[in-house]
């Protein structure tokens, strides 16, 4: 039952993405940018660097997700709130969870398609060099989970506000904070706190592990896969979806 409902919501949302001109415009802009960077890199590094050095497009996509993610998700719940359609949906025999999970998987699928399109660059690499397939698996798996996490996190803002622009801005800010946690950790680590250096180091490590980059750029991106990285992304998605559900519930309880 719940699966059918998730499927129904998923189908509708996915249909919306693939009918919406904005989704194509975003994909176009991304692919054009990737194309420019990739082709110029091919010419510059020809005969100089291993093919693996060119397998960076997914990581570029994950970086750009702080902009693209909010654009993808801002509509999802803000529009339902604004149009009031959520009132009707929440009086159907469907749990909020099914509704939100369906929406999330739809936007994640859209992201996966964009990510899948970047496999073209990888195929190009296999024709001109010997990229490391195992590493590529890590690169793409990580980028996929990373994207899902960003989407889930930005979805929270879409649930909180009715204004899509506000949702997008706050979403971008949140993702940027998570992206820069690495730098913040370094900053904290460099604080001179001689009485209790272990505390500062622990704090810095904690901040770092909260961030997105520590779980992708330093491990999966180079082909190392760690259980905690996968757990981080999956747990972040679960936590974000849980919070989103709470907010949707609280909104109608307060409405």
């Amino acid at each position, binding site marked *: 039952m719940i699966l059918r409902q998730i499927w129904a919501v998923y189908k509708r949302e996915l249909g919306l993405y693939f009918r919406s001109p904005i989704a194509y415009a975003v994909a176009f802009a991304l692919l054009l940018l990737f*194309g420019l960077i990739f082709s110029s890199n091919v010419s510059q590094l*020809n005969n100089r660097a*291993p093919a693996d050095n060119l397998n960076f497009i997914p990581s570029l996509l994950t970086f750009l997700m702080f902009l693209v993610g909010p654009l993808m998700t801002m509509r999802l719940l803000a529009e339902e709130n604004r149009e009031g359609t959520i009132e009707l949906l929440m009086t159907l025999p469907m749990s909020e969870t099914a509704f939100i999970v369906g929406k999330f998987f739809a936007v994640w699928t859209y992201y996966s398609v964009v990510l899948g399109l970047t496999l073209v660059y990888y195929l190009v690499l296999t024709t001109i060099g010997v990229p490391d*397939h195992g590493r590529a698996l890590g690169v793409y798996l990580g980028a996929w989970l990373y994207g899902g996490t960003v989407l889930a996190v930005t979805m929270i803002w879409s649930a909180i506000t009715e204004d899509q622009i506000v949702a997008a801005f706050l979403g971008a800010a949140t993702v940027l904070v998570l992206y820069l946690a690495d730098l913040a950790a370094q900053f904290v680590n460099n604080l001179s706190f001689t009485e209790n*250096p272990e505390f500062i*180091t622990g704090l810095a490590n904690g901040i770092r592990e909260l961030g997105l980059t520590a779980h992708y750029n330093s491990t999966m991106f180079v082909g190392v896969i760690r259980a905690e990285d996968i757990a981080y992304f999956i747990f972040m998605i679960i936590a974000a979806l849980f919070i989103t559900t709470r907010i949707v519930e*609280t909104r109608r309880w307060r409405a």
Partner: protein
Amino acid sequence: MTTNPETPVNPENEPFIPPNILLGLAALGLTVALFVRLTQPQFGVIGWGTLAFTVLALAAWAVLAPEQAREFMRGRALRFGGVSVFVTVLVLAVLVVSYGFIKDRGWRADLTESEEFTLTEDARAAMRVVANDPNVPPMRILAFYGGDQADRRDQDTVLFEDYIEAATSDAGVAKLSYQFVDPDRNPTQVELYGVLPGQLVVVEINPDGTENIENKQVVDPNAAQFGGPDFQTSLTNAILRVGASGDFRAYFLSVQDGLELDDEGDEGLSIIRDSLVDRFGWNVQQLTAVQLSGPQSTVTLNDPAADGEVLIVPGGSEALRDSDLQTIIDYVDAGGNLIIFADLGAENDGESLATAENMGRWLWDAFGVRFSQEVVLDQSLSLQTPIQPASVEFSDSNYITASFGGQDAVVFFAPHALEIADTLPTNVSVTELAFSSDQAYSKTLEELLNEEINPTDSDPTGRFVLALVAENSATGARVVLFGSTNLASNGWAQASSLGVRNIDMAFNAIVWVTGFNDFFVEQIPRVEESFDPQDAPFAATQQEIRNINVLTLLVLPFGVLLIGVLVWWFSRERAQPA
């Protein structure tokens, strides 16, 4: 929350502290406690304090707002009301704890085909030796990675774990451990070990668990960028070196026209020196005979404290003075080890240290062997010219050549043949290591200097011994004699990839005479860099680059745009008839 309008709440009955704030405090306490648990080495006062605070806040909440607490149990407030914030925090806490649990398991995998973060087979074999050799002390890798090198820390953890697993003996005792040291926080350690941030140190661990700073090796992970070995090779060698850290000493004798230890040219010994010093941490010096035994001597020969000792005579075109020879004789008689590379003697009217009368007499008396005056040439088995006869047959009973296979060769340069007495002195055994082919012939040095290198009928022919070992089982002395000096010189090291094992033979001789091979129970595995196809640069022709440009700049983005326009157009068409 559940009061009915019939019984309005008297404001004076409201709790002094709003219950929701108490819940918020409890959530905050729980968050802090979790954070402490996950990031700090000890749970400590803060951890227990915040945990107790959480419990207190919850208890106060239950006392002050019993209705809410009841509602919480019933489930209504679980989803609605201020409690839902607390429930959310609780769910997050469960996730964080699960994350910590998974992190502690430390499950990792190296996906790369080139196995960048996995030990190579060579390194794994070397670590197995380290693990199971009782003589190898436990060691620790200290990685001086700062806060800005957290990425490296994550990546290298994978590799270090692999090292530790490989260096764990069959009995389950780990010989290796690792530790990250923040150089900014521990400047004293940095100074103590003399490292730069970003470098690593492999250090021996004393039986009492302290670090033996005397026995350490610094590893620079960036060496590969400057043409050095890759990170894994450097680290493996450093571990071997610290692990093999017996007190081994090699003394090279300074002689007229002999090879120089610090010479990095083709005729130098720097490769041998670096192998011994950098890889195995030997004490290697080049000394004159006076420095060896004179009143100002800086070394002690036959030192019982040393785990192994060798005296190497790298050529020499003049006979040793009798007093100097006597030093050597005393040393060998007391069980010392000697390696002699014979100089051709072309510089000094055919005279050479090895073929000199005093040297020959002593060798003949003590070990029943000596260098002949004749020089071996070979037309059938040689490298380019008859004066470079090669040996492809080796003794497989002695360690020095036991590992040489059918494809391996050793090339000599105008070697003096070795003569062996029919009856050896008592307690002495001799093993022939390398031979010329049966078609080799010998000439006197004089003939050779007159550039008569083709065989004549008067030349003795046959199979000549070009290298041998002699061992006195009573004194324990070991002597290795090589017919020419070029075995140890740098110039021949480059040929090793062609199967020319000159430098390996010299090196193995040093290892064998000192018993270093027994010190490491097994033969030390050769750790070489691996080269993967993934490391090769990609190559695209101009046509391919043009094709790539068309594909990535036009086909892909504009294709997507076209599909978008089509989709938009058709959905617009369908909307119209309505």
